[in-house]
C-alpha cells in the first residue's frame, strides 16, 4: 500500500494530533542523516502551505517518521489508536517495500 493510501486510514478528527506527533518525532530524531532532502523539502513546502494535516501532508510525514524512527512511529500510531495503520508497518523492515 502506498503512503497516500496509508494516510487515508487516519480519520479526519485525528489528523491534527497525528501530524503534530509525527512532526515532533521527526524534529527530535537523532537519525536526521536518514532524511532524504527531497522528502524534507516536500515537508517544508506542505508546512509553509499549512497543509501538513492534509492527506498528502500526512503521507509525507508518515514516510519520514518511518524512515527516521520506525519503532517510535509504531508506538505513536498505537498511542493514537491507529492500530490498523500501525499494523501496516509492523514486522521487520516491512516499511522498506512501501513507496
Amino acid at each position: 500500500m502506498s503512503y497516500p493510501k496509508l494516510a487515508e486510514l487516519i480519520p479526519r478528527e485525528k489528523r491534527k494530533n497525528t501530524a503534530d506527533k509525527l512532526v515532533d518525532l521527526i524534529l527530535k530524531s537523532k537519525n536526521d542523516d536518514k532524511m532524504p532532502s527531497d522528502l524534507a523539502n516536500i515537508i517544508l513546502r506542505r508546512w509553509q502551505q499549512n497543509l501538513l494535516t492534509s492527506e498528502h501532508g500526512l503521507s509525507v510525514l508518515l514516510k519520514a517518521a518511518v524512515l527516521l524512527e520506525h519503532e517510535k512511529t509504531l508506538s505513536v500510531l498505537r498511542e493514537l489508536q491507529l492500530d490498523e495503520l500501525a499494523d501496516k508497518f509492523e514486522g521487520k523492515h516491512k516499511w522498506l517495500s512501501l513507496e
Partner: protein
Amino acid sequence: MVKFGIEFVPKEPYWKIVFYAIQAERGGFNNLWITDHFNNRNVYVTLTTAAIYTNKITVGPGVTNPYMVNPVFTAQALVTLNELAPGRVVLGIGAGDKTTLASVGVEMRKPLSAVREAVSIFRNMVRGENVAFEGKVFQVAGAKFFFKPKGEIPVYIGAQGPKMLALAGKIGDGVLINACHPDDVEYAVNCVKNGVQEIGKQFSELDVAAYTSFSVHEDLKKAMKAAVSVVAFIVAGSPSQVLERHDIDLKKAEEIREALKANDWGRAFGAVSQGMIEAFSVCGTPDMCIERINQLLKSGISQFVVGSPIGPKVKAAITLIREKIIPSFTT
C-alpha cells in the same frame, strides 16, 4: 512596539531550522538570526533556504565576523540573498570569538578597526561602488561587483564590551547586545548611547536588540535544565569582572571552564548555579519571561532576540512564545 527575533544555530540540518523558521514567522517573530561558525553548517545556505520558505521575516547572519569571512564576500552573499528576499535582509557582524578563531589559526587583530573597516567596505560594496580601501586591518585594491546590487541592507553590530558598543552606536543601523540581565543590558545601552551622542545621531534611529540565551517552559525546572549547558559555556567565556558583577563565585566558574575543556559535561553542567542561570539567560515560565522582557525593555531596547536553547523542545517553546509571550507586547 518591541520586535521579536529568534536565533538558530545551524548545527541542526537545514530542514529542522527552516521548519522552526516557518513556525516563528507564523508566530509573529520579526527577525530570524542564524549564527555563523565554521564548525556548524553554512550560514548563507541556511539563510537562503529559510528565505525561500518564508515571506516576511527579516533574515540575516547573527553574527558573522570579518576575520573568517572577508567583508567583500559577506556583501556578495547578502546582496544575492537580498535579490531572493528583497527588503528583508540584514547583516549582523561582530568581532567573533577568540577561541574559535584561534582554532583555525586566525588572530583577532584590532577588533574595533576590523569591524569598523568591514562595515565600511560592506556598505560601499552593497552600494555597487568600486571599493579601494586602505585600512589598519583590511586593504582592498579595487573591488566592484560585475552586477548592480539592489536595495539597502541594514547593518547590526554584535557587541559586548563598552568600546564595541559605542562603535555600534556610531556606525550601526542596529546593535545586537549580547546580554540577558537587566543591569548588563542597561549598561550596554548606555555605552551605545555614548557612541550615538558622539556623532549627534538619535538613539531612536537604531534598532537595539537584547540578544539573549532563552529558555521557556511551563515547568520552571524543565526550562532551567535546558538552559544549563548554554549558561555553562557563557560562564566559562565571561571575564572575571562580569562574573563578579553578578556575585558569581570565580572558583566555580573556573571549575566549569576546566570541566568543559576536559569534555566533562556532567561536572561542568553540575556546577551551574541558579544565580548563573539568572545572570546569563532569560529562563522560566512564560510569565517569568514576560517579566524579564519588561525589565529589559525599560533600558530602551527595541528588539528582543530569543536565542539558544529557546526551550527544552524548540517547537513547543515557539508555540508558547507565540501564544503566551508575544501577545503581551503586541496588544
